[in-house]
Each structure stands twice: as structure tokens, then as C-alpha cells.
């Protein structure tokens, strides 16, 4: 375990689940027989619209009857199917590994460890923007272990032939390094491409700092090397000998977004096209443009999301909560992916009920592989999967895709967009 911290995130619980797996879905077994259990009001984040929702099982369960007829026995939670299709990729679970970007906390060992475990789980993985311009691609560099190719190779070595997939992000500055062109023509990536398991994700924005581009803190020498490609702010970090590197947020209009997606489909006909949106006030309109231009998936990163460096003013005050993004989008016409404080089954189940196809794990995944580089993420997700099965079964349903708005209750009502 490193010194990795995630203040304001349920770090201890996530690390415990990374060690114990499904046991983490229950209270400490040491308390069994001598402790009384019940609702704990402190659970969740006050003010988070998703945490404030409750999942509400019904008495009458026609889908359970159908399952009973199918099985010729009473169904239980282990009968719930979790497999789904995420942005064109068959996935074992409605969960994917979110992009970490090139932030130092996620670089090298943790990124590769997370990639390997995501492959083993059979869930898709997104590789963040700026990994190539900052850490390199890995084909002829001196240290391929830091690179984009190391993450893709780690994933491909573990994943089963018919599961998962890799989505590679590119932002405006990444276009200079031609990340997508490089990946699309690389012999090492051909097995994923030929089996339909490569996607390119156009990064329009991100949750933790909507309206800003990606940010990392670099030592002065690295900052000098990247000065041609990025904005380097010498005023930030000067006392520590570091520099703040910023990407631009990129300029978008409806037409720019539409045409960028069409060009991606034109240039990479064998890759899936994903679009990542920030928790913006026009998220519904932007998602609509992306789907109608042919995006295979739209990812919405709630303001609760993020793994990397961000200004405090943005972390505390900017962007819509994910729940409000889901309310504004309403019923998505195609695959909607969500991220933001995902680590356990209830939040994922609520998001699926509100229209999402799958949820992405960012910080939780990093903490899990930091706790146990071999099995931490697998353990965390096995625990999440158990919760998803129990919740879905309790709601009288036997496939996660059947979760719907009727399964959640909001104290003040959940107004349509």
C-alpha cells in the first residue's frame, strides 16, 4: 500500500472491500450475535441527489413469477444476471474502469495493475487523455512500462476473448500526438480491433473540473519538455519547484461536436465511438447531439467524479451532481455511462434505474489496486456485484438491465426533465 489518499471518499471502506471482497457487503461478522443493526442516518453524502434516493422493493413481483416458471424453483439473488453491453463491448458486469489520466497518483504501477484486473473481470477499460503526450506510447521509448501500450497490453493479456474492450481518450492537445491514429495502426492493438473491442473516447470535459482541461503537476524539467504542447503556469507550485500543466478545455459548439463524432466514425470505422461529457448545464442537449451523430456511448462524469488534480473552487462549487445530470437527460435513447463516487452496489443500482447502462469506477479502483495490486479491484467489484444481485433480486428483477425508475423513490419526487 502506498501513501495514496482520497480525502472525502469512503477510503477505509473501499480498502477493506479490496481486501475481503464480498464480505464487505455485510457488517463486521464479529458483531453477529451481539449487535443490533439498522438504518444509519449518516450514510451517504448530504445533498447528493443519488444518495438521497432509496431503492424500494415491491410486494408484487411479476418478473419473479416469470423467473420461477423458468427455473421451476423460487429464484434468489444468485439468479440475477449482470452481463450487459457497454458502448458496443460485451461486459461481465454493468461496470467499467474509468480513465485515470496521467495524474501522478495513477501512473505506472497502479494504472497497469488496474488494467490487468479489469481485463480479468471482463469489464471495459478507459485509458485517459494525456497518457501518451506525458508518459509516452511505449513502442520505441526507453521506458514502455509507463506508457499507454503497457496499459493496453496488461489488459489484453488478462481479458477473455469474448469480453470487455478498451476505450482510448483523446483531447484537443492529444490530437497533436495523434493518439487515435497511432493506436488504430498499431500491430499490438490489432487483436482488440479485429474483435471489435477497441473504442475511441472523445473527451469533451470531465466531472471534477467542468469547463477546464486536464491538469497535472510536473517537475520543472518535464514541464519544460511539454511547454510546446500545453499551458505551463509557473506561478503555481513555484515554492515546491513544480509547475502546473493545463490542457485547454477545447472549444465546442453543437456543430463542432457533431462533426468531430462523424469524422471519428469516418476515420476509424472499425472502432467504437464514445463521448465523455462534463456535468454541464446543457448535458441533455450535448448527449443528444452525440447520440444522433452516431456515438456508441455517452459518458457523463458527475461533479462528484475525478481522480486528478483540480482547483478547490471547482471541487466544491462547479458542475451538476450526477443525479441532476441523470434527471435532465431522462430516458436515454442509447448507451449512457456514468461516473462519480462509484464504489458500491446501491449507487450503481440507482444509476441503472435512472437510465444508465453502466457505471465507471475511478478513485475506488485506484484505492483498491493500491491496497492489493493483485486482487484489490477484483475483490472490490465482486463485493459490488453481490450487492447489485441482492438489490436487483429484492426489486423483483433478474437482470440488471430491467432496473427502472419505478425502483427508486425520492423524498421530494423525481421530476421529469
Amino acid at each position, binding site marked *: 500500500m502506498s501513501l495514496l489518499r482520497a480525502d472525502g471518499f469512503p477510503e477505509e471502506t473501499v480498502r477493506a472491500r479490496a481486501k475481503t471482497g464480498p464480505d464487505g457487503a455485510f457488517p463486521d461478522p464479529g458483531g453477529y450475535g451481539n449487535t443490533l443493526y439498522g438504518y444509519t442516518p449518516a450514510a451517504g453524502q448530504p445533498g447528493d441527489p443519488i444518495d438521497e434516493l432509496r431503492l424500494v422493493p415491491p410486494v408484487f413481483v411479476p418478473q419473479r413469477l416469470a423467473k420461477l416458471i423458468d427455473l421451476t424453483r423460487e429464484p434468489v439473488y444468485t439468479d440475477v444476471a449482470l452481463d450487459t453491453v457497454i458502448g458496443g463491448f460485451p461486459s461481465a458486469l454493468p461496470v467499467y474502469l474509468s480513465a485515470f489520466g496521467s495524474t501522478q497518483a495513477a501512473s505506472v504501477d497502479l494504472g497497469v495493475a488496474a488494467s490487468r484486473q479489469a481485463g480479468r473481470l471482463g469489464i471495459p477499460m478507459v485509458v485517459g487523455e494525456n497518457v501518451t503526450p506525458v508518459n509516452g506510447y511505449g513502442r520505441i521509448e526507453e521506458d514502455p512500462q509507463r506508457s499507454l501500450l503497457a496499459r493496453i497490453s496488461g489488459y489484453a493479456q488478462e481479458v477473455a476473448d469474448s469480453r470487455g474492450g478498451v476505450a482510448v481518450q483523446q483531447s484537443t492537445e492529444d490530437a497533436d500526438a495523434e493518439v487515435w491514429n497511432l493506436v488504430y495502426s498499431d*500491430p499490438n492493438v490489432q487483436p482488440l480491433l479485429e474483435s471489435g473491442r477497441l473504442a475511441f473516447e472523445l473527451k469533451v470535459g470531465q466531472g471534477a473540473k467542468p469547463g477546464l482541461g486536464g491538469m497535472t503537476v510536473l517537475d520543472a524539467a518535464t514541464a519544460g519538455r511539454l511547454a510546446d504542447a500545453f499551458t505551463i503556469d509557473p506561478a503555481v507550485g513555484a515554492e515546491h519547484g513544480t509547475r502546473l500543466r493545463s490542457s485547454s478545455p477545447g472549444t465546442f459548439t453543437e456543430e463542432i461536436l457533431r462533426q468531430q463524432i462523424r469524422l471519428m*466514425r469516418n476515420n476509424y470505422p472499425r472502432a467504437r465511438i464514445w463521448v465523455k461529457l462534463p456535468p454541464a448545464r446543457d448535458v441533455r442537449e450535448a448527449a443528444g447531439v452525440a447520440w444522433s451523430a452516431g456515438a456508441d456511448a455517452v459518458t457523463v462524469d458527475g461533479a462528484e467524479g475525478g481522480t486528478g488534480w483540480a482547483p478547490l473552487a471547482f471541487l466544491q462549487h462547479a458542475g451538476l451532481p450526477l443525479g441532476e445530470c441523470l434527471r435532465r437527460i431522462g430516458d436515454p435513447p442509447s448507451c449512457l455511462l456514468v461516473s462519480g463516487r462509484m464504489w458500491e452496489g446501491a449507487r450503481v443500482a440507482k444509476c441503472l434505474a435512472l437510465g444508465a447502462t453502466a457505471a465507471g469506477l475511478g478513485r475506488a479502483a485506484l484505492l483498491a489496486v493500491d491496497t492489493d495490486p493483485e486482487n484489490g479491484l477484483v475483490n472490490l467489484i465482486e463485493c459490488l456485484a453481490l450487492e447489485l444481485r441482492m438489490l436487483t433480486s429484492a426489486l423483483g428483477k433478474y437482470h440488471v438491465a430491467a432496473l427502472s425508475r419505478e425502483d427508486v423513490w425520492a423524498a421530494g419526487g423525481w421530476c421529469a426533465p
Partner: protein
Amino acid sequence: MTQTRPAATGHQELPGTPREHLSSPVTRAAAIIQYRMLTAVREYLRGQGFTELLPPVIGPVTDPGARGAKQVDVDYYGHRYKIMTSAILYKQASLALFDKILCIAPNVRLEPLETASTSRHLAEFHQIDVEMANASREEAMALAEGVVGAAVRGAVAGAAEELAWLGRDVNQLSELVSAPFGRRSHADAVADLHSMGHSQNPDAEINWVAEAILSREASRPFFVTDYPKGSRGFYDRESRDRPGVLRNFDLIATEGYGELCSGSERESDYATIIARIRETGENPAKYGWYLQMLREGIPASAGFGIGVERLTRYIAGLDAVWQASVYPKVPGVAAP
């Protein structure tokens, strides 16, 4: 850690060793045909008032409009430079010098590996690049037709023996360029493909398989016009009357040989180009020198690029485009 192998789909014979390829009578015949062809094209364009320029090989930025192909980076005294994927930006800029310019330009594109089996892609190739100030798309198409006609006539006149040895019917070849080429819009081509049961995205470039189908069906070379925005680079001008439709064209050969040439009226308005650069996902900052020239004003223009090796392959009737290159680089295959 990188290994190179041909794409899984399809298979084509690859060039032998450099000595085998250079000793091959096919290579020799193709080289003679190509030389006669280029001589005739230069002569034809000289007669039309064009001046030939020697194009740059590297620059801070190059044409991003190539479908999924990676550019080659060069460390130019610490600056990231690119080997030209096409001469387009320089062609527009060169109109500050002459109104009608021509280059035979080398291009390098690290094409997707699947192109190794199309028989019509090379990672290193040349284009007959033409640009003319204040010209329309129709004038550019007429000129492209003239250039292909001149190339065929030059090859027939100067390399009849080689064409005959390769089994090319000289009379049939001459007949192909004796009448105006056909024309159809991208939308019509898509509709034709759909009626033949072939899937084709209406918002995208005609895919390689579809292009080969259309090419096989044609009795005479034909232009496809009006490609949708989102299928081409930012420099192809968008129609003012029909938003989303570009004032551009491709020239498609007969017999399944496919595309020979791409061209268009060019966008020359600074603010429009900035928006179009964003629509293609590019970072305007790296196009600094070109945008500065646009801001100061360059003439409206039209032009095209004809693939030299593809035209040679077509005229000579070769199985694969690499046979029309003396030092062929098939995508993904390491070769000198």
C-alpha cells in the same frame, strides 16, 4: 516489442527482396510507363500555364485529413515536425507566388494495417498536386480529366511496348479517356450501394470495399462529388447553399482500381477555417503559420492531388499498387 504482420483479412503477394523487385521486368515496365506518364502530365500542365514547384518534405504541421493514418514525427532541432502526408497547406500558401502551381510531391502516411490487403495503399507514395487561384470545383474537375487523359496518351505514345507486354489493351485504354468522365453525387453513390445491399454510412467517406464495387461497375472513370462534412479535411469548402455538403470530388477509375484523385474548392476564410479545424478535432495552435497566412489573405482556389502510383497501376493494369513503386512500402511491412 512491436511485431509486424499483414492484416488478418485477405492476402496479397508482397514485394520480394530489393534485388528481386528491381530486377523484375514488371517493375521495369511500370517505371517506364510512370516516367512517360509524368513527362506528359508536366508538359500538359505547362501548356495550361502551370509552374512546377519543389514541395517541402517536412514542416511543423501537415494534412490531418487522411483516414486514420498516423503522421511521422521528425525531431527538428527539438521541435516536433511532420513528414508531409500531403502538400495541401503549402499548395494554398504557394498561390501567393503563382496563380497556377504544380508539384510532384512525396507523401508518407502510416496507414491502418488493414490497408495492407487493399492492393491500393502504400505508406510512401507521390501525388501530382495541382492548385489554381480563383478556380471553381468544375474547373478543377475538368483539369483533372485533362491530366489523366494526358497521362494515358503519354504512356500509350511512349511505352506502348511495355503496356502490351503487361497485357494492357492500348486501344481500350485510349478509349477510356476519349469522352468526358461520368459524375454522380456522394448521396447517389450511397443510394446505389444501398440498393446493391452494401452497407455504407451516408455521413462518411465511401469505404474501400464499396469504392471497389462502384469502380468495377463503371465503364468509364467517374467523379463522385459533394461529400458530407465530417468525411474530409477542414480545407474542403462547405457549400454556401447546402450546409453540410462539401464542394469537393474524388475521381474513381474503372475495373475495380478505385480512387485515383481527390480535390475540392478550398476554404480560405480565416474564421471559417478555425471552426472547421475544431470540427475535425484538431488543435488550431499548431497551424500557426498557415492561419497567419489565411488571416492576411490568400486567394480562393481549387485543386486536387492524383496518386502517381495509383494512376500508374491503373494505366499499366497492375495487380497491386506496390508494383508501381521502385521502393515500395506496403503498410505495416518493414522495407527499404
